[in-house]
């Protein structure tokens, strides 16, 4: 705006007004486009992967098909599912599970999150817990594992403060209870095996009482076991060994009583076929 001669700002000509509007609009288009493209950065730069709920499609397909409504969050009985924030880029509003905080223990029995998903981001092609493949458990820190030291476990698995819940069918078939209300007294720590939802189902099936009386619920393959380690010393030591039936639900990571979990989930990792 030229300010020669007059004190009053001159009224802009139509042409000048249009020129300014054009510049302003260009800035708006550039700004919004830039900011929206910025949301691709965390995704394309391969930021820390997230453990997704059961049935999640491959990561890029999962993110494109998820409509970010959180219906899966609402149906989960153990409240394991959360929606990611803006820092997750394209994952914003998409569901994830933080296993150490609260794992999926399949206590809904029917994969409620999958049933709730309106877009098939959690594929409707699976019906049972053992059909999911969220990842694979791995003994990351054998040195921390109590069983590897031949030690037992007595007390509350994650301490009084921990608020995670699990279903213990012998206590309440329908409602999960806080882990801190369920102390253990174990000669050898086998929490990762004992609380594994797949192993629990296999035990029930072996006893002739499959979950919901439905033999389809029976996992055909074992997920985890403790193997005796031959070695020196008087103590008997055991090693948790992850097997092909592991679905990566994260309960072992959640319940592992060491300060950092000795066993963790490798997100989206599949059982190597040549190992079968």
């Amino acid at each position, binding site marked *: 705006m030229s300010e020669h001669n007059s004190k009053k700002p001159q009224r802009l000509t139509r042409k000048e007004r249009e020129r300014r*509007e*054009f510049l*302003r*609009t260009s800035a*708006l*288009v550039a700004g*919004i*486009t830039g*900011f*929206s*493209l910025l*949301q*691709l950065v965390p*995704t394309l730069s391969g930021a820390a992967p997230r453990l997704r709920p059961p049935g999640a499609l491959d990561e*890029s*397909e999962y*993110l*494109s*098909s*998820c*409509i*970010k*409504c*959180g*219906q899966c*969050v*609402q*149906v989960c009985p153990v409240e394991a599912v*959360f*929606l990611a*924030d*803006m*820092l997750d*880029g*394209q994952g*914003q*509003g998409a569901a994830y599970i933080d296993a150490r905080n609260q794992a999926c223990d399949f206590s809904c029995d029917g994969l409620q999150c999958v049933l*709730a998903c*309106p*877009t*098939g981001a959690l594929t*409707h092609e699976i019906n049972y817990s053992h059909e999911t493949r969220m990842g694979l458990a791995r003994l990351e820190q054998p040195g921390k594992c109590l069983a590897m030291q031949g030690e037992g476990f007595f007390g509350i698995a994650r301490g009084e403060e921990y608020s995670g819940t699990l279903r213990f069918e012998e206590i309440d078939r329908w409602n999960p209870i806080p882990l801190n209300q369920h102390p253990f007294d174990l000669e050898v720590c086998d929490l990762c095996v004992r609380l594994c939802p797949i192993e629990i189902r296999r035990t029930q099936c072996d006893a002739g009482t499959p979950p919901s009386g439905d033999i389809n619920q029976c996992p055909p393959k074992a997920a985890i076991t403790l193997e005796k380690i031959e070695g020196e010393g008087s103590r008997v030591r055991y090693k948790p060994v992850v097997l092909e039936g592991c679905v990566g639900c994260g309960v072992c990571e959640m319940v592992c009583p060491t300060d950092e979990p000795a066993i963790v989930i490798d997100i989206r990792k599949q059982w190597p076929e040549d190992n079968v």
Partner: protein
Amino acid sequence: MRIIKYCINVMLGKRPAKTPPEKISEEAQALHQRKKDSGEIDKVKAREEHEIYRETHNKKWRKRRWFSILFINLLFVFSYALDIQMLEGALTASRFLGFHMADLNSALQVMLAFKTVLINLLIGFVTVLLMWLLLGGRTFCSWVCPYHLLSEWAETIHIKLVEKKIIKNHLFNRKARTWFYILFAVLAFGTGYTIFETISPTGILSRALIYGPTVALLWVLFLLTVEIFYSRRAWCRYVCPIGLTYGFVGAFSPMKVNYNAVNCHHEGDCRKVCLVPHVLEWTIKGRAPELNVELGPDCTRCGMCIDVCPTDSLNFRFKGLSKKR
């Protein structure tokens, strides 16, 4: 049909033009002539009437609308928080008493990005399409969208600041929204990600209300700040593709705001309060092609114009049910 095409073009950003005389009906021409002849005599009186009306009127539609926005969004919140399970999910997709619902724009983004349509999504899409086809399309914006409410409050502050000459309003070209619409569709199809969803204040707010506050709310706060200090209702007017999606639906809806030119003073108070004043160009003296004209599809059916009109010239009309005057 021609008028629908014209109105859609205006929605997409075309400047409303003077109505050519040959397109004005005889009745309307007579009315325009009569008003022209009576001249400016009644101008002062009309202005007075408008001021009195503005101060005394109870803003009926605004009350109802605010109630609707709060009710629907709180129903989402309580369905989850209190586990009453009436309306599960968020505004992007939900289940109302078990029936699938999907926001049209969110569903379109997913379809473009994922390139597969699951039956549940299709059911939700069609249900919501039919619903807004009946209720007026952009009715979603002003009666449901939580950002609309915040933006309306921001607008009140903006107008006060402009009146006090502390700030100036800055207009953008309305075609920007059409460009954004194409851009976000192309981005979804091309990248395979629903990119608009990550910056949509509607989705961000809805999820934050239901699942707890997020960092993304800062983006919403930024948008509101821009709207308060720089450009009135900028997001809804110049950017949001959700509005345009519902706008297309509204073009074919029987639910419209009807303008009757007979008693109108042409004071333009309706255009001053309107989010999309280009739909009210008919109310300019000499523009109405008929005695009764429907407002264009960009109209959000918010009823603000009805609330400020002292002459009852603007009214909701459901084609086929409401009587013409």
